[in-house]
C-alpha cells in the first residue's frame, strides 16, 4: 500500500510557514549587541525544524539554504559571534527568500535561483567575515552539508546501536542491514557486549549493536534514507571512508542528523507502526508522484483546531444524543400527562443545539495574532526605509475572530498601518521640534466589545489636518462651504472614492489613497470603520467587525406582509413614539426626541418601497432605535415579531448585492427573510431612497 505523502506535505508547509513567522518575530525582537539566548534559541529551533522537514520531504535546496542560516544562528547562540544589526538584517532577508522558496515548492515550482544564490552568498559573506579561529569552526559545520563535494568517499563506516525498544516500534535491525547490503558489499561486526544473562533476557528487547563497513561509493542520503524511520530509536553515525582510508568526520555528526528528523518523527505518529517500513521503501516514489498532484490540487484551506475545542464538541454531541433518545422514548408511548417532560426535553434540545452551534463556531475562531504578527516586520522595514523611529505596540492578540475575518482583514490593516507609519508619524527631527519624544508609537489593539470585535490603530503622529480636508472637499464639490460638518463627518470624507485618488493634499499627503477600498473591504465583512484625530497629537482608527459571519441574533420585524431581520447588536431599543416627541426639520425631515437626542426617522416602507404598510402614522407603529457606522436613527416599522438566532445565507451567491440588505435567512416555515444592513440602510435613506425623509442629517 502507498501512503499519500501530499497530506504530510500540507502539514509540513503549514508548520514551516509558522516556523518562518517565529523566526521573523524573534529576529525583530533581537537587540543588536545584546541578544536574549532564549530568543536565539527559538529562532534556531524554528530554522532547524524547517531544515529537517524539508530534508525529509526532499526539498534539498530549502534544506541547504536553511542550513547556512542555522550555522550563523548557531554561532550567535554559542556567543561565538556578536549579534549585529547587519547580521539580523541579512537573516531577515534570508527568511524572506526562504519563504519564497517554500511557497514555490508548495506550488510545485522552484524559486528564483538567482535571488537564492545572491542571498546565500550574502550569508556566506557574513559567515566568512570573522576572526581566523572562529572561521575555521564555522567552516566545519558548513562543509558537513555537502561533504560529498569535498572528497568522493569510497565507502562508509556505520555505527548502529539500536535502543532497547527498537523492536517494539515495529522496526527490525536485520531488515536495515539487509537493505544496506543491497547497496554494496557489506561487512558487519556485531557487538554483543550489551547482551544480558539469559535469565534476564527480554525477547522483545534489542541488545545488539553493529559496526558496519559498506564498500560502495553511494550517496550518504541513500544510507540516511534507510535509517530514516529508526533515527529516534537508535544511535547511529555514518562516517565516510575516503580513498586514503582515513575517515575525516567525527561521530558527532550523527547528532544533527537525528535531530533533523524530528518533524519526520512527528509525522510517523500518525501512522500505525507496521506501515512504517513499507513507507520508507516507497517514499522515494511517492514523493515524485505527489508533487504534481499537489500542484493541480490547488490550496485547500485547512484549519488547526485546539483539541479542547473538539473534546467539548464531542461532549456536546453526546448530550444531544442522550436528549434525542429521551425524546424518542417519550414519543413512543406518549400520553398527555407526559407533556411537562416533553417540554423539558425540548428545552434541553434547544439548549444543546445552541451550545453545539457555539462550539462549532468556536472552531472557526482563530486568534487575531495570525494577522497582527506580520506588522512588526512591516513597521520595522518601513520605518528604516523612511528614517523614522517607531515603536509598535500590540495588544489583544489573543482575541478570537472568525477565520474569514482573519483572511480578509489583513490587507485593509496593512494599508492603515502603512498610512500611520508613512503619513502619521513624523520624522525624529519634526517630532523633537513638536516637543514629542523621538520615537513615535503605533498601537494596534483588538478586543471584544459587545457583539463586535473592535480593532484600533492609534498613532501619536501629527493627526489629520481637518481644515485641509474640508478645503479640499469643498474644492471637489463633495460638500458645500456652508455645510455645518462635525469633525467626525469631515474625517469621514477621506473615505470618499474621488477624494483620495486625485492629486494629494499636501501635508496630509496620501492619507486617503485607497481609503475607500479599505472601507469597502470592511463593509463587506459587515463591519464599520471610524476615524478620530487630533491635529498634532495623533489619530485613532477604529474598526468594528461582527464576531461571526455565519449566525446572528436577530429581531424579526414586519412591514406590511414582509418580514425583515434586524441584527440585535444594532438595536439600542424599541419604543412607541408619541406625537409630542415628533418634530420636523426644515418642514420635512422627520425627527423625534429621545431623551436628549434628536434622531432622524427612517421609514422602512418608503426606503424599500413596500406598498402595503399598515402603519402610516408614526404613533401607530414602532420605532426601532438602531445604530450603525457610528450613527443612530429610528427605524419605523409596523410591528416587532420575535427574537431568534438566524443563519446568514448569502444573497450574492446567486443574485447580487442589494443596498440596505446584508444577507438572507430561512425562517422556521421555510420562507426567506432578508437581513437589514443598518449602515447601508442609513446611507440609502440619506441618498434619497426615501423621498419623505429627504436628506437626513444623521446624528453622529
Amino acid at each position: 500500500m502507498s501512503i499519500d505523502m501530499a497530506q504530510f506535505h500540507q502539514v509540513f508547509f503549514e508548520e514551516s510557514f509558522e516556523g518562518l513567522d517565529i523566526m521573523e518575530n524573534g529576529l525583530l525582537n533581537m537587540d543588536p549587541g545584546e541578544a536574549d539566548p532564549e530568543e536565539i534559541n527559538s529562532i534556531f529551533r524554528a530554522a532547524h525544524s524547517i531544515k529537517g522537514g524539508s530534508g525529509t520531504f526532499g526539498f534539498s535546496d530549502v534544506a541547504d539554504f536553511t542550513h547556512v542560516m542555522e550555522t550563523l544562528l548557531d554561532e550567535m547562540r554559542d556567543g561565538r559571534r556578536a549579534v549585529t544589526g547587519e547580521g539580523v538584517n541579512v537573516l531577515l532577508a534570508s527568511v524572506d527568500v526562504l519563504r519564497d522558496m517554500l511557497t514555490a515548492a508548495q506550488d510545485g515550482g522552484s524559486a528564483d535561483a538567482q535571488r537564492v544564490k545572491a542571498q546565500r552568498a550574502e550569508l556566506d559573506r557574513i559567515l566568512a567575515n570573522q576572526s581566523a579561529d572562529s572561521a575555521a569552526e564555522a567552516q566545519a559545520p558548513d562543509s558537513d552539508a555537502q561533504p560529498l563535494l569535498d572528497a568522493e568517499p569510497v565507502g562508509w563506516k556505520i555505527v548502529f546501536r539500536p535502543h532497547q525498544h527498537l523492536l517494539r516500534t515495529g522496526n527490525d535491525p536485520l531488515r536495515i542491514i539487509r537493505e544496506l547490503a543491497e547497496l554494496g558489499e557489506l561487512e558487519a561486526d556485531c557487538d554483543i557486549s550489551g547482551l544480558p544473562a539469559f535469565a534476564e533476557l527480554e525477547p522483545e528487547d534489542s541488545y545488539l549493536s553493529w559496526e558496519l563497513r559498506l564498500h560502495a561509493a553511494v550517496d550518504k542520503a541513500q544510507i540516511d534514507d534507510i535509517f530514516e524511520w529508526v533515527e529516534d530509536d537508535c544511535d547511529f553515525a555514518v562516517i565516510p571512508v575516503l580513498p586514503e582510508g582515513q575517515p575525516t568526520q567525527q561521530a558527532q555528526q550523527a547528532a544533527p542528523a537525528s535531530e533533523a528528523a524530528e518533524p519526520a518523527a512527528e509525522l510517523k505518529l500518525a501512522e500505525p507502526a507496521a506501515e512504517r517500513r513499507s513507507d520508507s521503501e516507497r517514499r522515494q516514489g511517492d514523493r515524485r508522484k505527489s508533487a504534481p498532484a499537489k500542484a493541480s490540487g490547488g490550496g485547500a484551506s485547512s484549519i488547526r483546531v485546539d483539541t479542547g475545542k473538539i473534546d467539548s464538541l464531542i461532549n456536546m454531541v453526546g448530550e444531544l444524543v442522550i436528549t434525542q433518545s429521551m425524546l424518542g422514548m417519550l414519543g413512543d408511548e406518549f400520553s398527555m400527562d407526559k407533556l411537562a417532560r416533553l417540554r423539558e426535553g425540548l428545552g434541553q434540545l434547544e439548549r444543546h443545539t445552541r451550545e453545539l452551534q457555539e462550539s462549532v463556531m468556536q472552531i472557526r475562531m482563530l486568534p487575531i495574532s495570525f494577522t497582527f504578527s506580520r506588522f512588526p516586520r512591516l513597521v520595522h522595514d518601513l520605518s528604516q526605509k523612511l528614517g523614522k523611529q517607531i515603536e509598535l505596540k500590540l495588544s489583544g492578540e489573543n482575541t478570537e475572530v472568525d477565520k474569514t475575518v482573519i483572511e480578509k482583514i489583513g490587507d485593509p490593516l496593512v494599508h492603515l498601518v502603512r498610512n500611520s507609519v508613512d503619513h502619521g508619524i513624523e520624522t525624529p527631527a519634526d517630532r523633537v521640534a513638536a516637543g514629542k519624544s523621538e520615537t513615535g508609537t503605533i498601537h494596534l489593539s483588538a478586543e471584544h466589545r459587545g457583539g463586535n470585535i473592535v480593532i484600533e490603530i492609534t498613532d501619536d503622529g501629527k493627526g489629520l489636518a481637518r481644515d485641509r480636508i474640508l478645503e479640499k472637499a469643498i474644492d471637489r464639490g463633495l460638500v458645500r462651504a456652508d455645510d455645518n460638518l462635525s469633525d467626525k463627518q469631515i474625517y469621514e470624507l477621506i473615505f470618499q472614492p474621488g477624494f483620495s485618488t486625485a492629486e494629494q493634499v499636501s501635508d496630509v499627503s496620501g492619507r486617503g489613497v485607497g481609503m475607500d477600498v479599505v472601507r469597502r473591504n470592511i463593509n463587506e465583512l459587515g463591519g464599520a470603520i471610524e476615524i478620530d484625530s487630533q491635529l498634532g497629537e495623533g489619530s485613532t482608527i477604529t474598526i468594528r467587525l461582527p464576531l461571526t459571519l455565519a449566525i446572528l441574533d436577530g429581531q424579526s420585524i414586519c412591514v406590511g406582509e414582509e418580514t425583515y431581520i434586524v441584527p440585535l447588536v444594532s438595536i439600542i431599543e424599541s419604543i412607541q413614539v408619541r406625537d409630542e416627541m415628533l418634530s420636523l426639520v426644515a418642514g420635512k425631515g422627520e425627527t423625534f426626541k429621545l431623551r436628549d437626542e434628536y434622531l432622524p426617522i427612517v421609514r422602512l416602507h418608503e426606503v424599500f418601497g413596500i406598498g402595503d404598510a399598515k402603519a402610516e402614522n408614526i404613533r401607530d407603529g414602532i420605532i426601532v432605535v438602531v445604530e450603525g457606522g457610528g450613527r443612530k436613527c429610528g427605524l419605523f416599522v409596523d410591528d416587532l415579531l420575535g427574537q431568534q438566532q438566524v443563519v446568514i445565507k448569502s444573497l450574492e451567491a446567486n443574485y447580487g448585492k442589494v443596498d440596505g440588505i446584508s444577507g438572507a435567512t430561512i425562517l422556521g416555515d421555510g420562507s426567506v427573510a432578508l437581513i437589514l444592513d443598518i449602515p447601508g440602510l442609513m446611507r440609502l435613506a440619506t441618498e434619497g431612497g426615501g423621498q419623505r425623509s429627504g436628506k437626513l442629517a444623521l446624528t453622529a
Partner: protein
Amino acid sequence: MSEDKLSLLGQEVAEDAEGVQYLTFLLNGEHYGLSILQVQEIRGWEQVTRVPNSPQFVKGVVNLRGNIVPVFDLRLRFGLPEVPLTKETVVIVVRAGKPGEERSMGLVVDAVSDVLVVQDDTINTTPDFGAGVPTENIKGLVTDGESMVMLLDLDSLVLQTGAEQDQDAA
C-alpha cells in the same frame, strides 16, 4: 448516451448525430428552448420574498434547499405583457454562468412543453432587427415542426443580471 461527451454546461457540443437536448417552454405564445443540462429542476410557483429596490423582473428570492435563489419573470425580462402568477405557473430552476461562477436562478415561464433534440448544424443565426427587438440573449433559432423555437443563451442572461446588480452596488 452523448451526455458524458458534453461539457458540464452543455456549451461545447460534441459532434454527435443525436445532437443536444433542449427543454422548450412557452412564453406569451412563443416557443423558447434552453439546454437541458442547465436545468436543475422544474417547480410550481410559490410565494417569494420580495427584494427591495430591485428591477421589476426580479420577483424575489426563494429558499431552494437552503440556498437563496432569485426568481426572474422571463415575460418581464423580455418586455412581454405581465400575467398574474398562480399555482399553475411554472418556474424552471437553472444553473448557468462562467465556470466557477455559476449562479442558480428560477425563471418564471408560462408552461413547459417538450424536450427537443437539436443538431448543431440546424441552428439558424438570429436575424438582426436592430435596437428595436432585443435579441442579445438568443443564440439561435431552430424549427420544430410548425413552430420556431428561440434558443436562450442563459450565460449571457446571467451575466446581464449580475452586471446590473454590480452597477447598483457600486
